[in-house]
């Protein structure tokens, strides 16, 4: 733990070093990197933006800050010397949150494993999580310990990385309610924990957020947030911003009302909670709210854009990713699909579902909102990752949010104002004919418009999207986004559905199948400035793992039949692969172990919505099973089996 107590005064000014929360500034095509202009030390003390490197900034604010920082440095150094003398990795080799940093780049600066030596990667150790359901989590590493959040029953494991074989340091079993399994749409997954100061925090399927002491695993506080009786669950990896734990619910297929809550990280009490449908006072829309597009302006749109009472069962859950810009003091996260899937039962734009919120993390007040899918027709949840990049667009530097969206378009959005700068298809979309940049609205294809009783064929992309929740990574070395995506289309027949609290509220029969080209998955390198893909690798099976980019010119992803692959980040050539025995739908990470070497870690265990046929033993004779996914993955049982194992790789000792 000692190495984390480094203040700004003593931290080496290595170009590109970033501690927890460092922000990446990527210039177009240039490999030069600016120093991160905001430093958080790992204690979570937020220093005000230092505005260094660019010459500007509020110089008058600097002096008191520097004094307090110097004081902190002295105190912390003293504590550091007194701490245990185990050699532990400095904080830049850690992975303290699922997205690695607040900008969600999922990029590791470690470069011991390179494109040249990756073929020598060997298994360093493994760990069995004891439950063979979909493993979607990212392992969290800090201070010589690795934290693994397992699917229901949501045991949290802490592995001691300082000992050979990484033995279990402690584990925590939360006694989560079994009945929650009946209202979890897409397997009993958990997308990971988050580290904050001396606490490791995660969510259980039945909607309890729990904070544990990192050293002992003792429960420090727990806050129940979701109500499984109405179909709410929680599967997302929380994010801690300025001492507040951000948690969003899941359950858009059960007609719940979506929300995002902020809990105090010290004691777990709810600081604010914003709903995603209903009156402005529930959605925390107030005088600060300045949406860019006209269709998002107005009062109580969360009621007016729905038939009466429909907003109460309107969905818009927040089960995906959150990013944070400390300079603008805004969090960014997306809302899920509206309920039910049958759009005829909910005419209107259905605000505030299917869109992206920018909120003030202290108060929860919304700053802007952009709706990717007004009156969503195809279950295009908008919860994907938001990669914060500073790019030069048309000669001017812009603060950009890059979003590979479920509808198959890669959006670049000005994260200060919510303006869509560009939206380019990274998949052959036919459900929409482009995005109208003037109004911000998608042009829905009238031929693909579902209607009750009518079968609409070959809608691309399918309901799970051109890319689902599985996050992409950004490499500042190449300046490209690495997007693990799917290539699936669907037939859809809308049916009238009854709302019965606690039961699914869907109203669509769906068959999914491989999209144009016949392959079901692809891994692409996308140049956000040139707005097109650079190279693409096609896979037979859909890719549902996250992506990892490292400074060793490597990108990593996993396949649904169990291969972890390392590709050359520049040309996509395969440098190494390893068969882990069960499909990979988790998020690979890279960390520096206590011995100073680089390790690549990933959870192997197929499941989630895509792997349902394997993990729940579904019947492929029903094309609409698992909301149509079984039809697209009918051969998966032959290709993989359930699993639940951590694999960690490293270069051999010599």
């Amino acid at each position: 733990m000692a190495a984390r107590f480094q203040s700004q005064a003593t931290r080496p000014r290595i170009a590109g070093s970033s501690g927890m929360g460092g922000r990446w500034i990527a210039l177009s095509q240039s490999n030069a990197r600016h120093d991160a202009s905001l430093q958080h030390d790992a204690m979570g003390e937020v220093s005000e933006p230092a505005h260094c490197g660019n010459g500007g900034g509020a110089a008058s604010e600097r002096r008191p800050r520097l004094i307090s920082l110097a004081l902190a440095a002295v105190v912390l150094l003293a504590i550091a010397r007194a701490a245990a003398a185990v050699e532990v990795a400095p904080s830049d080799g850690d992975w303290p949150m699922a997205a690695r940093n607040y900008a969600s780049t999922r990029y590791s600066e470690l470069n011991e494993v390179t494109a040249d030596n990756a073929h020598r990667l060997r298994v360093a150790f493994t760990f069995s999580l004891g439950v063979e359901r979909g493993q979607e989590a990212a392992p969290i590493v800090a201070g010589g310990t690795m934290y693994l959040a397992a699917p229901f029953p949501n045991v949290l494991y802490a592995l001691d990385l300082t000992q050979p074989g990484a033995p279990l340091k402690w584990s925590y079993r939360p006694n989560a309610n079994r009945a929650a399994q009946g209202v979890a749409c897409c397997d009993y997954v958990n997308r990971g924990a988050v580290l904050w100061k001396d606490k490791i925090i995660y969510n259980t399927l039945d909607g309890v957020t729990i904070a544990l002491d990192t050293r002992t695993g003792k429960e420090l506080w727990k806050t129940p947030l979701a109500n499984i009786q109405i179909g709410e669950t929680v599967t997302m990896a929380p994010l801690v911003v300025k001492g507040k734990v951000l948690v969003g619910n899941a359950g858009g297929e059960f007609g719940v009302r979506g929300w995002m809550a902020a809990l105090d990280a010290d004691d777990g009490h709810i600081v604010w909670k914003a709903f995603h449908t209903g009156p402005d006072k529930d959605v925390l829309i107030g005088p600060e709210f300045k949406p860019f597009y006209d269709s998002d302006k107005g009062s109580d749109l969360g009621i007016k854009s729905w038939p009466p009472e429909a907003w109460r069962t309107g969905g818009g859950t927040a089960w995906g990713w959150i990013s944070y810009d400390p300079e603008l003091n805004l969090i960014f996260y997306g809302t899920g699909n509206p309920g039910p899937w049958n759009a005829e039962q909910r005419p209107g734009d259905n605000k505030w579902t299917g869109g992206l919120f920018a909120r003030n993390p202290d108060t929860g007040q919304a700053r802007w909102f952009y709706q990717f899918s007004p009156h969503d027709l195809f279950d295009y949840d908008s919860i994907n990752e938001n990669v914060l990049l500073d790019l030069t667009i048309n000669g001017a530097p812009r603060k950009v949010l890059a979003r590979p969206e479920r509808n198959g378009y890669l959006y670049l959005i000005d994260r200060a104002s919510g303006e869509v700068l560009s939206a380019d298809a990274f998949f052959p979309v036919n459900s929409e004919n482009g995005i109208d940049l003037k109004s911000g609205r998608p042009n829905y294809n009238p031929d693909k418009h579902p209607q009750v009783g009518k079968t609409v064929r070959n809608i691309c992309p399918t309901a799970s999207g051109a890319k689902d929740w599985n996050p992409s990574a950004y490499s500042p070395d190449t300046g490209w986004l690495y997007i693990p995506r799917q290539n699936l289309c669907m037939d859809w027949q809308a049916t009238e559905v009854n709302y019965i609290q606690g039961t699914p509220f869907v109203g669509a029969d769906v068959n999914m199948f491989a999209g144009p080209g016949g392959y079901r998955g692809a891994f692409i390198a996308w140049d956000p400035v040139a707005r097109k893909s650079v190279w693409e690798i096609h896979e037979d099976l859909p890719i549902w793992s996250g992506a990892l980019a490292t400074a060793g010119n490597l990108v990593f992803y996993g396949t649904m039949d169990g291969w972890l692959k390392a590709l050359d980040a520049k040309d996509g050539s395969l440098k190494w692969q390893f068969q882990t025995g069960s499909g990979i739908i988790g998020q690979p990470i890279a960390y520096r172990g206590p011995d100073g070497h680089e390790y690549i870690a990933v959870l192997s265990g197929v499941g989630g919505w895509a792997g349902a046929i394997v993990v729940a033993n579904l019947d492929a004779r029903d094309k609409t099973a698992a909301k149509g996914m079984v039809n697209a993955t009918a051969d998966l049982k032959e290709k993989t089996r359930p699993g639940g194992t951590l694999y960690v790789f490293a270069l051999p000792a010599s």
Partner: protein
Amino acid sequence: MIGALQTAARLHAAALADVQSALDPAADQAQAIDGIWHLMLWVCVPMYLLVMAALAFVVWRARRQRRERGDVATASEGSLYNGLGIWVVVVMLGLTVLTTASYLVDRKLIPAQDAQVKIRITAKQWWWQVEYLNDDPSQQFMTANELHLPLAQKTHVELRSDDVIHSFWVPNLSGKRDMIPGRVNQIELTPRRAGKYRGTCAEFCGLQHAKMSLLVYVDEEKNFASWRSAQLGAAPSPGSEVLEHGKRYFETTTCAMCHTINGTTAHSLAGPDLTHLASRSTIAAGALPLNAGSLAAWLSDPQRQKPGTNMPTIDIEPDDLNALVAYLLSLK
């Protein structure tokens, strides 16, 4: 003479006037159909009588000729062709008139897209789900088995079916239009006379086809507006313990599985929307009047009232039944 004819016409109309009569048109569409009905009647009846008279004459003359002369004289070729020629011309004229009239009336019945009121009716066995549509989604609402239409305004009705083929027929207002699963049909209604009319399902759709009727109220503009705004609101909250008991019973037991009452947790579309049940005059698609007795009979054993209906017979305790009836009757 004219006076006598006028009186006869009025008596005739009065005799035909009824809540469910195609011969008592109260809307533009029914008027057009009524017009062509009368045209066909007054063309075809004389033609029929003429033909019968000609046949009778020929038979009588043949018998007389046989009696007098012993055989039947045949007409000369010339007069035969003349007669035939005249007859063909007459028939063709008649058919042309009728065809043209039919074509023109058909054109009149085609629904325009500029209606002021838009309704979607989904027929289900054996009741009518009625949705009032609106460009502003927050102004839409749902009801069942009863239509209210504004006087002298065009109403466009979209017709769908959830299960088998039904047919929408309000004789006083327009003709029949089938409701076919998987297909959307349309009909337009422009009522010209305020009042109450009765429609019925006109395509055999199962056991209770006969008890699938629809009441249509044509109101003045301001009455229609006030009815509409009342329907938009949620159900009134229970004002007494008995009503609270009824609401709780509704929400926590079988009722919420199939019915909707806005303002409660029940939002199912399998059965009629009951949010403003007490504002309607019948239950079970016109099978029973709305009053405490019929409602109690219906709730305690719907299968006896309308055997085969999809509402099951539920074992309700007497206290629960009384509370439920009271609560439902409070939903104005």
